[in-house]
């Protein structure tokens, strides 16, 4: 059944700081970077940041990781006269596009008029996301995980990946292709952290961090901030750019994925998956679309195999066929035709978390907006629908379909 809020709100502003290699953003502070991203997004929308009256976040109630930002500090920092909506989608980066659904909820409830969704990230030496589990104090629950030496998200994704390779014959060459195909999209992106073409030799020579995954299968560790502004379609018409219409947005998940990789109890075939099947089914039902109807897919790529598993969960290919799908070139963007390759849908035309920057998924939303505006650096010709996903991670995960106005 079509979503009740279909095409009623739109993302009208996008803004970011520069992207810094982990730790290099200091002496900037979290609130400094967050404020710059918000002000840039408001300028892009053609509104004053003092018109913001709503926040729709993801990733824990305090918002953010490591050094936190929150509504009260941002409101004071930016001099917003009043706030009438402040909501957070629980869990981690999997909630990124789902936060636009929270924004829509606030807007459709007439609680607010312009809502900001934000991630600001700073990984100083004393705290890095990559060792977040290993560095945290033991708890009764993680005492069933930490002692095994599964200390970071990449270790856990490697465990899922190994099972996928076992069940379906998935080849390491497919992971290489995901990294190379998305790296090929960053050579012309001025802010991208990794812009050089990636050779086979460089990929295979990349150190094994958690066999079967190499360093280059892991996303970047980045500092920076990204913000987007969502408003109602009526207000969107008065903004500077063509609106990126919120066509569908879903978050959630099913019990078989449950606590997922902090638990490792998932039965097959869920174990060797991205945990997105439930949310994928919901967003296709909401939108009336299928994977083949989207023009570009911005797929959360904190670890290369999780792109492959999302392609399966969203139905770009059948379960277990992700390796063949990727290896046939179908995630590539062809600059000459501004389209896909071999009947595929271009994936991560901005380079993704693996190559451009890792701001916990916000860059995928920005690219989705630019694609349906028609202003992307690697523009897909006549892009009407863009799919954006967040996660795989602990539930909820989420996804968003943006539509060209």
């Amino acid at each position, binding site marked *: 059944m079509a979503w009740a809020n279909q095409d009623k709100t739109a993302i009208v502003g996008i803004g970011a700081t520069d992207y810094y290699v982990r730790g290099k953003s200091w002496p900037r502070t979290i609130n400094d970077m967050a404020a710059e991203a918000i002000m840039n997004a408001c300028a892009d929308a053609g509104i004053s940041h003092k018109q913001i009256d709503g926040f729709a976040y993801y990733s824990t109630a305090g918002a953010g990781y490591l050094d936190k930002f929150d509504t009260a500090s941002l409101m004071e920092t930016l001099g917003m006269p009043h706030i009438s909506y402040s909501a957070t989608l629980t869990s981690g980066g999997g909630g990124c596009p789902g936060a636009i659904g929270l924004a829509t909820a606030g807007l459709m409830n007439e609680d607010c008029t312009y809502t900001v969704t934000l991630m600001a990230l700073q990984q100083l030496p004393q705290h890095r996301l990559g060792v977040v589990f290993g560095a945290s104090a033991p708890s009764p629950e993680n*005492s*069933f995980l930490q*002692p095994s030496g599964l200390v970071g998200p990449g*270790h856990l994704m490697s465990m899922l990946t*190994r*099972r996928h390779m*076992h069940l379906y014959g998935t080849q390491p060459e497919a992971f290489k292709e995901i990294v190379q195909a998305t790296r090929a999209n960053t050579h012309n992106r001025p802010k991208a952290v990794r812009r050089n073409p990636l050779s086979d030799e460089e990929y295979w020579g990349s150190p094994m961090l958690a066999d079967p995954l190499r360093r280059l299968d892991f996303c970047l560790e980045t500092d920076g901030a990204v913000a987007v502004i969502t408003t109602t379609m009526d207000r969107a018409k008065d903004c500077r750019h063509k609106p990126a219409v919120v066509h569908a947005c879903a978050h959630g998940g099913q019990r078989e994925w449950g606590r997922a990789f902090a638990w490792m109890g998932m039965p097959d075939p869920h174990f060797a998956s991205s945990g997105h099947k439930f949310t994928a089914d919901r967003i296709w039902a909401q939108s009336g679309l299928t994977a083949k109807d989207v023009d570009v897919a911005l797929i959360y790529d904190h670890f290369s195999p999780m792109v492959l598993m999302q392609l399966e969960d969203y139905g770009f290919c059948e379960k277990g066929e992700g390796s063949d799908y990727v290896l046939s070139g179908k995630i590539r963007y062809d600059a000459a035709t501004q389209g896909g390759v071999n009947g595929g849908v271009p994936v991560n035309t901005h380079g993704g978390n693996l190559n451009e920057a890792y701001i916990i998924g916000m860059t995928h939303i920005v690219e989705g907006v630019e694609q349906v505006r028609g202003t992307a650096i690697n523009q897909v010709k006549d892009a009407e629908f863009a799919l954006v996903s967040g996660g795989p991670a602990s539930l909820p995960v989420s996804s968003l379909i943006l539509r060209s106005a």
Partner: protein
Amino acid sequence: MTYGPARALPGDQIKITTNPDTEPFWEAAKEHKLTACQCGACGKFRMPPTPVCPECGSREKNWPTLPGTATVFSYVVCNKNPKNGEDYVYVPVVVDLDGAPGARLNANVSGCDADDVYIGMKVVVDWTPIQDGWVLPNFKKA
């Protein structure tokens, strides 16, 4: 790739905490008994131990002593000690516990080369003393 012998992480670097829901598992481990949380009403197993049976809602629990054998469900090969970054080959595994269908443990496996670990490999519990007098179940090749 040749990794050589798989070693469990050093027990003196490992610390755990417990709560009333999980403590029976760790108390049994001190006596070198492998157990898992079983619902006292419907008999379904769950791990890590949680307060309420997700199948039937009962708070009743059993802690049966399991055979101590298991099967590797998936694994990763790591080559740096996460505490200090030194070269150290260890193999985190997720195992299905014999006698407790649906219950899994995360652990290390040893007693073979890391290169020889495979999904479906039979393993047997191997007790590792850790900090504060607790004992951790790891596994050795059966």
